[in-house]
C-alpha cells in the first residue's frame, strides 16, 4: 500500500480544550505542529461544557489553592495523586487569567472581575459548611466560550490543522517502545497517511458513548484509549466512570450543576428536598457520586416521579426569570427543547447520566505517558504524551469535582506543550526511522472492513455494548451483574472484530468511521468493566453492593488494565504532594 508520510516536530491528536491549549504552546514556540481532529475544532465536545472552570481567584468569597486542593483530594475519594493535584490547583489562577487575556467572555461582577459561582464539593476552610465561589463562568456556556477562544488564538498563531482526519493507530519503535507517530485517515478522500513526529500528544477526549444514556457527543468513542490499548499501553482507573446527577430524563442531555450552584434543588415525588437527608451540610451541592447515589436510592425506594416513578425533579423556578435568563439561558433552551418544560415555570425531570471518565491513559503532570517497565511502575514512554479527559494524571481519582475538567484541560494542555518543547529541543535533529511494519495494523483493519461482504452490523454491536454497560456497570454495581457483564462485553468485543459495512465508498465514508470508532469503544468498555469487577471496594464513582465501604488497606491503589489477556496490574497512589503535607484519608461526608 502506497502511503504518504508527513513529518512534523509534534502532532496533537484532538482539538478540544486540551489539544488546542497544547497546540497553542507549541505553535507559539515555532515548532512544526500538526493538529489532527475528527471534527472541525469548535465542534469538539468541550463546546458542550456548561457550568464553569474552577480557580480560587477569590473574587466573590475567600479562597486559596490549599482549599481547592483539599476539596479535589477529598472529591477523588483519596485516589487522586496529591502531587498532580497540588500542581493543578497552584496553576489554576494563572491559566484562567491567561484565558481571560485571550478574550474569553467570562461573566462579570460589578467590580469588573470574573464572575464565580458555587459548585458541588467546592468549600472553604478544608471542607467546612461554607461553600466557596470558585466556578468561573460564561453564563452556562463556559465550554463553548473557552473552546472558541482557544481556537481563535490558534488561528492567530497559525497552527496547522488537519480537520476531519481520524487517527487510527499508534506507531511504536519495536526497539524501545518509543512512539513515532500515528496513522490517520482523511475522511474526505479515504486516504491513509503516516504522521511522523518526535512528540505525539493524545487529547482525544472521553468515551461516554459506551453507556446507553450519556451526556456525551456521538464522537466521544475513546479513540485515544483504543489506540493506546492496541499498542500495548495500559489504561488506568477505568472503573471510575462518573454519572452526572442531572441529565434530562429520556434524552441524556446535561443540565449543569451550576443550576444547583445558583440555588436550584432536587425534589422527590413527595416534594421533599431529599438531599438534606443524605448530605446535611452541602445538600444538593455534595459531590456528584453522592448525589447520583441518593437519587438512584430515592427512585429504587419508590419515591421517583412520573408515571413510571423513574426520575426526580430539578426545581429552579424560585430563582426568577432574571437569574435564569442571565446565568442559565442555555439550560432554559435545552429544557424547552428536550424536556418540553420551561424551567421558569416548572421543574425539569432529571436522572443520573453517564458523563465523565476519570480514568484513561496513564500520564504524569508534565504530560508524559507512563507505564510499568522493569522495576519502575511509572517509566515514561518516549515520545508519547496525553492530556485532557483521555488521560489519567490522576487528579480526579475516584470522582471528579465539577469544573475541574476544564481546568485540567488548560493546566495539563499547557504543561504537556511546555514539556514537548523541552523534549524536542533535546532530541537529535533527524527523526528516528520508521519500522518496516509501520501502519500495518491500520491497513489490516481497513482491508478487513473493505473486504467483508457480510458480518455484524455496526449499529447492532454498538447498541448491545451500550445497553450492557448501562445495565451491568452503572451507578450501583452488583457482583453477579459485573461477572456476567464482563462475559457479555468480551463477546461483544469479539463481534466488533467481525463488523461489516455495506458502504465501500472512498469519499467521506461515515459508516467506515463508525466501525473504526467501535473498535476503540469496545476497548474502553472492556477496560471499564473488567477493572470494576476486580476492585472489591466502594470508592468514588465505584459503588459495590457486596463491598459497600472504602478499603484503604487493600485498595488504595491505581488499576492498570492491559488489552492483552485482559490483564490487570496495580500501582501506588502518590500520597505525597509537592510542597505541603499529605491529606490523610478520612471518612467522606458532605
Amino acid at each position, binding site marked *: 500500500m502506497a502511503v504518504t508520510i508527513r513529518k512534523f516536530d509534534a502532532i496533537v491528536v484532538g482539538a478540544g480544550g486540551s489539544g488546542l491549549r497544547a497546540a497553542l504552546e507549541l505553535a507559539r514556540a515555532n515548532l512544526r505542529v500538526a493538529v489532527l481532529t475528527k471534527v472541525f475544532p469548535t465542534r469538539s465536545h468541550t463546546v458542550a461544557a456548561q457550568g464553569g472552570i474552577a480557580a480560587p481567584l477569590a473574587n466573590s468569597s475567600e479562597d486559596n489553592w490549599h482549599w481547592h486542593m483539599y476539596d479535589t483530594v477529598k472529591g477523588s475519594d483519596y485516589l487522586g495523586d496529591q502531587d498532580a493535584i497540588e500542581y493543578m490547583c497552584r496553576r489554576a489562577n494563572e491559566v484562567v487569567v491567561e484565558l481571560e487575556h485571550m478574550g474569553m467572555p467570562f461573566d462579570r461582577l460589578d467590580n469588573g472581575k470574573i464572575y464565580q459561582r458555587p459548585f458541588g464539593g467546592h468549600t472553604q476552610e478544608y471542607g467546612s459548611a461554607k461553600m466557596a465561589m470558585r466556578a468561573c463562568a460564561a453564563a452556562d*456556556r463556559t465550554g463553548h466560550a473557552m473552546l472558541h477562544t482557544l481556537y481563535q488564538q490558534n488561528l492567530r498563531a497559525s497552527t496547522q490543522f488537519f480537520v476531519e482526519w481520524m487517527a487510527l493507530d499508534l506507531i511504536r519503535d519495536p526497539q524501545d517502545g518509543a512512539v513515532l507517530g500515528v496513522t490517520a485517515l482523511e475522511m474526505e478522500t479515504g486516504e491513509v497517511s503516516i504522521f511522523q513526529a518526535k512528540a505525539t500528544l493524545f487529547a482525544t477526549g472521553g468515551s461516554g458513548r459506551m453507556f446507553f444514556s450519556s451526556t456525551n*457527543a456521538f464522537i466521544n468513542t475513546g479513540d485515544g484509549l483504543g489506540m493506546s490499548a492496541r499498542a500495548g499501553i495500559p489504561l488506568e482507573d477505568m472503573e471510575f466512570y462518573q454519572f452526572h446527577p442531572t441529565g434530562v430524563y429520556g434524552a441524556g442531555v446535561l443540565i449543569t450543576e451550576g443550576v444547583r450552584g445558583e440555588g436550584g434543588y432536587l425534589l422527590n415525588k413527595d416534594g421533599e428536598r431529599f438531599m438534606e437527608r443524605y448530605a446535611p451540610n452541602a445538600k444538593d451541592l455534595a459531590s456528584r457520586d453522592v448525589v447520583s447515589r441518593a437519587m438512584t436510592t430515592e427512585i429504587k425506594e419508590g419515591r421517583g416521579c412520573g408515571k413510571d416513578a423513574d426520575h426526580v425533579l430539578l426545581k429552579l423556578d424560585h430563582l426568577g426569570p432574571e437569574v435564569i435568563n442571565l446565568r442559565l439561558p442555555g439550560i432554559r433552551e435545552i429544557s424547552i427543547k428536550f424536556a418540553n418544560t420551561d424551567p421558569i415555570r416548572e421543574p425539569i425531570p432529571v436522572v443520573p447520566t453517564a458523563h465523565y471518565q476519570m480514568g484513561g491513559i496513564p500520564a504524569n503532570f508534565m504530560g508524559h505517558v507512563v507505564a510499568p517497565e522493569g522495576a519502575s511502575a511509572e517509566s515514561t514512554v518516549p515520545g508519547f504524551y496525553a492530556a485532557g479527559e483521555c488521560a489519567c494524571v490522576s487528579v480526579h481519582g475516584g470522582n471528579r469535582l465539577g469544573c475541574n475538567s476544564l481546568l485540567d484541560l488548560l493546566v495539563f494542555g499547557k504543561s504537556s506543550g511546555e514539556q514537548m518543547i523541552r523534549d524536542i529541543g533535546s532530541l537529535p535533529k533527524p527523526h528516528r526511522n520508521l519500522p518496516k511494519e509501520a501502519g500495518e495494523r491500520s491497513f489490516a483493519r481497513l482491508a478487513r472492513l473493505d473486504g467483508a461482504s457480510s458480518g455484524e*452490523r455496526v449499529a447492532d454491536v454498538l447498541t448491545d455494548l451500550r445497553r450492557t454497560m448501562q445495565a451491568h456497570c452503572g451507578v450501583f454495581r452488583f457482583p453477579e451483574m459485573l461477572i456476567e457483564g464482563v462475559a457479555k462485553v468480551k463477546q461483544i468485543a469479539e463481534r466488533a472484530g467481525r463488523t461489516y459495512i455495506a458502504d465501500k465508498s472512498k469519499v467521506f465514508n461515515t459508516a467506515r468511521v463508525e466501525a473504526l470508532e467501535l473498535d476503540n469503544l469496545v476497548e474502553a468498555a472492556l477496560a471499564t468493566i473488567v477493572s470494576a469487577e476486580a476492585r472489591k471496594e466502594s470508592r468514588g464513582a465505584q459503588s459495590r453492593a457486596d463491598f459497600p465501604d472504602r478499603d484503604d488497606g487493600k485498595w488504595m491503589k491505581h488499576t492498570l488494565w492491559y488489552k492483552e489477556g485482559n490483564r490487570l496490574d496495580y500501582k501506588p497512589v502518590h500520597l505525597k504532594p509537592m510542597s505541603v503535607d499529605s491529606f490523610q484519608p478520612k471518612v467522606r461526608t458532605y
Partner: protein
Amino acid sequence: MRLSIYRYDPDRDAAPRMQDYQVALEPSDRMLLDALVRLKEQDDSVSFRRSCREGVCGSDAMNINGKNGLACITKLAELPDHVTLRPLPGLPVIRDLIVDMTQFFRQYESIKPYLINDTAPPERERLQSPEEREHLNGLYECILCACCSTACPSFWWNPDKFVGPAGLLQAYRFIADTRDQATSERLDSLEDPYRLFRCHSIMNCVDACPKGLNPTHAIGKIKEMMVRRSV
C-alpha cells in the same frame, strides 16, 4: 415517516439524485437527527455530519423542507410526515448532506476572529463591567453552523468577496468587546464595496439562525459605526 434525501457520492454517482425512504421511528425518537440515525441503521451509506446532538457544536446544519436548520434540535412532532433534506445551499457538496465549508471558514478567518490587545497583560484579569460584558450577548454564542450565510443571497453570489452574516456577526463581537483595541483596523478591513456592503438587509440570516442570533442587527451596528467615523 417519509424522508426524501439528496444523494450524491462522487465515487459512484454521475449526478445527484433524490432518494425516498420510509423510516420506522421508535417512541424515543424526538428530533430529526434521531430519524437520520435510525435511517443510517437501515442504509449505512446515507452521509451527514453530527456530534453533540444538542445544538451546540454546529455539525448537522442542513436544508430541511426548504429551510436551513440543525437536525438535532428540529422536533419531529413539528415536522410534516414527509420531510425533504438537502445539503446547505450554495456550498460545494462533498457527499450527500455533507458540504465543503472552506469558503465559509475562510470568510470567518478574514475578520481576524480573535481578541487583539497588545498592551502588556495585567497580573490579573482585565476588568469589564457587567454592562460592557452584556454587549457580547447575542454575539459570542455563534456555533459556526453556517445556516445563516448559506441562506443569504449575497453570500451565494459572492462567497469569495462578501464576508457573510456569520463572519460579520463575529467581526462585531470583537468590535463590541471593550478589551479589544483593533476597532479601526477592523472597520478599515470591512470598508469595501463587497465585504460588508453587499448586505442588503434581507434578513434571511436572522430567520435561519437556529440559535436565535441576529446578524442583521450586528451588521447594522457596524454600518452605523462606519457612517459615524466618516463624519
